[in-house]
């Protein structure tokens, strides 16, 4: 048997039972690798359940800094008998499998093409710890200790992390360290350590990794921090996975940073609403009255908020909505990731509506775009929806550090104060004096005799007077389109990279790939894989809707354009077809909607199939023979 080899480049997956404390042990494992300066991307693949069901934690180690899923498992750590059979089958030939052998493995599960390590985790913990809770929790720490020996995790780093985590709780620290040492010792005594796949600080790493001062952070926390920096004062929400931690994090930071020094009172308000309709209503009311307000939700919440989104679009009110997407429709797979709200968000509500969407791909972008969305919502006087997903929101991502320019001012957009109203020649709430579709608004309580108007969801004329005249209506909704055109100049530009140089080019086709959000990391990796095979692909990462004109241009400049996304219906492809002047044939979907994030291997495989590469032909032939 040839064992899988590699320094700083492999995938480890942990199979656990949820509610047994595995998440924190697995996090310890991932964070230790991160602290060793080696690129790592951990992913929690968890059930919609609190205790007792299978849960997985996949850790990718990538010397090149690829943070998306690669596909495949090189090393499986399995302490869950429920899923053991499938977990063993999932290991790549030549891979490794570590399991709790307190109970012997069923003979039919044994494989001779992988290396198997049995450790009596349960037995060891029963022997060492009297407390039943500790017996369960520390089992996880024992296997982390064994992994430290097997793949060369710096033991001091693990200890430091435990010290940070349990600061002041000496007893916990010592029992955890003891568990680590037990695992470590067992592995060194019983197995050949380290394995051909292992870690080594500073070896083989891409230069941009060596030089960086990366942080490890999840997107929800980053988005919450963006809301703090963006000046949000009102947060109204209804709990829903996977967005709940956005408001939790906002509350945590606000309690630290937004307390009035003199009085101890709060310069923010957080209301847990009775449902998402109400949450959005509060945001709309606060925005109307001049406070920066936001909500965070996911699919079902977005549906419930749609009526209010239409009102905010038509009455022109600033709204920030952080939509952490999950698998739909309906309850779908609530703890699994997708990018399947693209159309629902872009056109949320009845009638002709279009909304500004932002698509962050990293925690640092979650932070920047979340802060920016408060400016955009007020500048454009319209809802702005930050489209993240469970993968980005709830998993830890290695990310460049967050940055803030202290010279940046809050851009409140066109708001007339009392002085402005006194000097304005002629004011109408919906009078487009600047020709950009954006009119001047006033806030309640501003001026004793000027600037009052009635905000409504029904049709009105330029002076905010109720009107059922078709002419007034058309003028108004056409101006809203003009405003949407203006928005193109305000929202983040798409990201492109210089064309990739290929040694022996094997195709005459000009190939492009479009993607956004969490599809980006694996897409970049797939593109590099294909470049190595002689197929250069130009990339464009979409960062906002409305699309910049460059998106049109990019598609026009290529013979075929792959649209890579994580939903069944190719929603971004549909949106592009709708909004750009594109022959649909040119756009080819690369999709994944299994609920687990898309992998680089999957993307590369689909592209190969479509353009008929040599490798694809070999694979097809093999399949035929099989």
């Amino acid at each position, binding site marked *: 048997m040839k064992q899988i080899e590699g320094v700083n480049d492999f995938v480890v997956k942990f199979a656990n039972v949820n509610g047994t404390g595995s998440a924190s042990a697995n996090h310890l494992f991932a964070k230790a690798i991160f*602290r060793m300066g080696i690129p790592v991307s951990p992913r929690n693949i968890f059930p919609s359940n609190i205790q007792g069901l299978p849960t997985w934690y996949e850790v990718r180690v990538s010397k090149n800094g690829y943070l998306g899923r690669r596909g495949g498992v090189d090393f499986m750590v399995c302490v869950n008998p429920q899923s053991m059979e499938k977990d063993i089958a999932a290991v790549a030939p030549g891979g490794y499998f570590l399991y709790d052998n307190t109970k012997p493995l069923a003979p039919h599960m044994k494989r001779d093409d992988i290396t198997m390590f049995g450790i009596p985790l349960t037995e060891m913990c029963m022997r060492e710890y009297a407390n039943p809770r500790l017996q369960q929790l520390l089992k996880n720490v024992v296997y982390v200790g064994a992994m430290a020996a097997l793949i060369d995790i710096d033991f001091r780093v693990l200890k430091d992390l435990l010290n940070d985590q349990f600061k002041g709780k000496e007893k916990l620290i010592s029992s955890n360290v003891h568990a680590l040492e037990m695992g470590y010792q067992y592995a060194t005594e019983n197995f050949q350590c380290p394995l051909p796949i292992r870690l080594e600080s500073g070896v083989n790493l891409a230069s941009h990794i060596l030089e960086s*001062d*990366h*942080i*490890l952070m999840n997107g929800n926390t980053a988005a919450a*921090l963006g809301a*703090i*920096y963006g*000046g949000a*004062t*009102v947060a*109204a929400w209804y709990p829903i996975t996977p967005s709940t931690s956005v408001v939790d994090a906002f509350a945590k930071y606000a309690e630290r*940073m*937004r307390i*009035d020094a003199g009085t101890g*009172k*709060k*310069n*923010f*308000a957080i*209301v847990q*609403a*009775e*449902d998402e*309709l*109400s*949450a959005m*209503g*509060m945001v*709309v*009311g*606060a*925005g*109307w*009255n*001049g*406070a*920066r307000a936001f909500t965070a939700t996911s699919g079902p919440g977005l549906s419930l908020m749609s*009526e209010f989104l239409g*009102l905010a679009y038509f009455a022109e009110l600033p709204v920030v909505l952080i939509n952490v997407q999950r698998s739909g429709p309906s309850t779908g797979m609530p703890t699994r990731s997708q990018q399947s709200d693209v159309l629902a968000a872009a056109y949320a509500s009845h009638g002709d509506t279009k909304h500004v969407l932002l698509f962050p791909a990293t925690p640092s972008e979650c932070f920047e775009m979340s802060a920016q969305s408060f400016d955009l919502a007020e500048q454009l006087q319209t809802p702005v929806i930050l489209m993240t997903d469970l993968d980005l929101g709830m998993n830890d991502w290695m990310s460049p550090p*967050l*940055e*803030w*320019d*202290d010279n940046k*001012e*809050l851009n409140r957009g066109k708001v007339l104060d009392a002085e402005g109203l006194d000097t304005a020649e002629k004011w109408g709430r919906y009078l487009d004096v600047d020709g950009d579709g954006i009119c001047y608004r*006033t*806030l*309640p*309580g*501003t001026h*004793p005799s000027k600037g*009052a*108007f*009635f*905000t*409504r*969801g029904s049709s009105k004329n330029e002076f905010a007077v*109720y009107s059922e005249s078709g002419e007034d209506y058309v003028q108004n909704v056409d101006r809203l389109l003009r405003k949407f055109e203006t928005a193109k100049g305000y929202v983040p530009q798409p990201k492109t990279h210089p064309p990739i140089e290929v040694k022996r080019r094997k195709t005459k086709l000009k190939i492009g790939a479009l993607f956004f959000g969490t599809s980006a990391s694996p897409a970049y990796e797939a593109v590099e894989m294909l470049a190595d095979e002689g197929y250069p692909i130009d990339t464009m990462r979409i960062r906002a809707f409305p699309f910049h004109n460059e998106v049109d241009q990019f598609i026009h400049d290529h013979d075929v354009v792959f649209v890579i996304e994580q939903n069944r219906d190719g929603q971004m492809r549909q949106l592009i077809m709708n909004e750009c002047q594109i022959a649909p044939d040119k756009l080819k979907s690369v999709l994944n909607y299994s609920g687990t994030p898309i992998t680089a291997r999957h993307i590369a495989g689909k592209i190969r199939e479509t353009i008929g590469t040599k490798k694809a032909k070999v694979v097809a032939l093999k399949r035929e023979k099989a």
Partner: protein
Amino acid sequence: MSYVKPKFRHPNLPTNRRGYTVADYDGAISTLCAGCGHDSISAAIRNACFKSAIEPHRIAKVSGIGCSSKMPTYFLGKSHGFNSVHGRMPSVATGASLANRDLTYIGVSGDGDTASIGMGQFVHLVRRNLNMTYIVANNGCYGLTKGQDSATADIGSIAKGGAVNPFEGIDLASLALLQGASFVARSFSGDKGQLEPLIRAAMAHKGFAFIDVVSPCVTFNNHAGSTKSYAETREHLAPMPVDFVPMRDEITTTYDPGTTQAVTLHDGSVIHLQKAANGVKTDDRTAALLRMQEARDEGNILTGLMFLDPNQADLNQVLNLATTPLNKLGKDELCPGSKVLKSINEGLR
């Protein structure tokens, strides 16, 4: 009714303490049916604001959808207004109030808007004790869609088409009491002597003030057999007179101590209530519920102030909100800056 509102005003119209005439509290011409009870409520709100000398621009009007929710257009034309989404005014009002706690908020809703589509938001608004006045113009039917029964229609009430309502009506005032409202009143659109002081008291109250106003629909629910017609309401009305003396005014009327009860509000204003034969007490939630239920059992409509707790913590207090309105805060108060961010980055390594 007229379709053009005359601009002419008497040059010597009296002014209130802040120098505004009653005309400064006018809104646009009403487009509701002639004789609609809602127009009387609009007039009562206008007069109440004038008399209490609240500056028009320091008031914000919010409503949902329906005949009732059109009303804010017809009073206080110098105030900002927000005609929002059907049944969702409570959430809009909550957000608005959180953004600027310094304004006076008047919400106008209807029985469909509050007791049906908006029931969820209504009870939660009550629970939160948001500092606002919430008026329901209650006519027991859907006017804009031509007369369907609403959830407040009394059981046995006959609709215009002859159908008898088979369902129990929801009593919003009792419900508000049950959910802990700090100010609960009921009135009748035809009794401005009672409605105006109630509205003034509601606006002076710090916390959620609910007024359920029976307001007959002249077009779809004013016939024999309807329990919410003008005639029926007048016949079964059991009003408790109310007088309101704002904080700054000297008390000039003398009340016989045996017949009235004075209740002092948070801002120092005083409400005088005429004691009913059985002795009115406005600080007893359970007694108020019982009294209202008894009147209902007898087929009577008890009006007046039912319950008041001037000291109940409102949402601003519960949230420990700073006194400066959130919408007045700038970059310095809101943005922690790059130095703080640097230390956050440190903690994430």
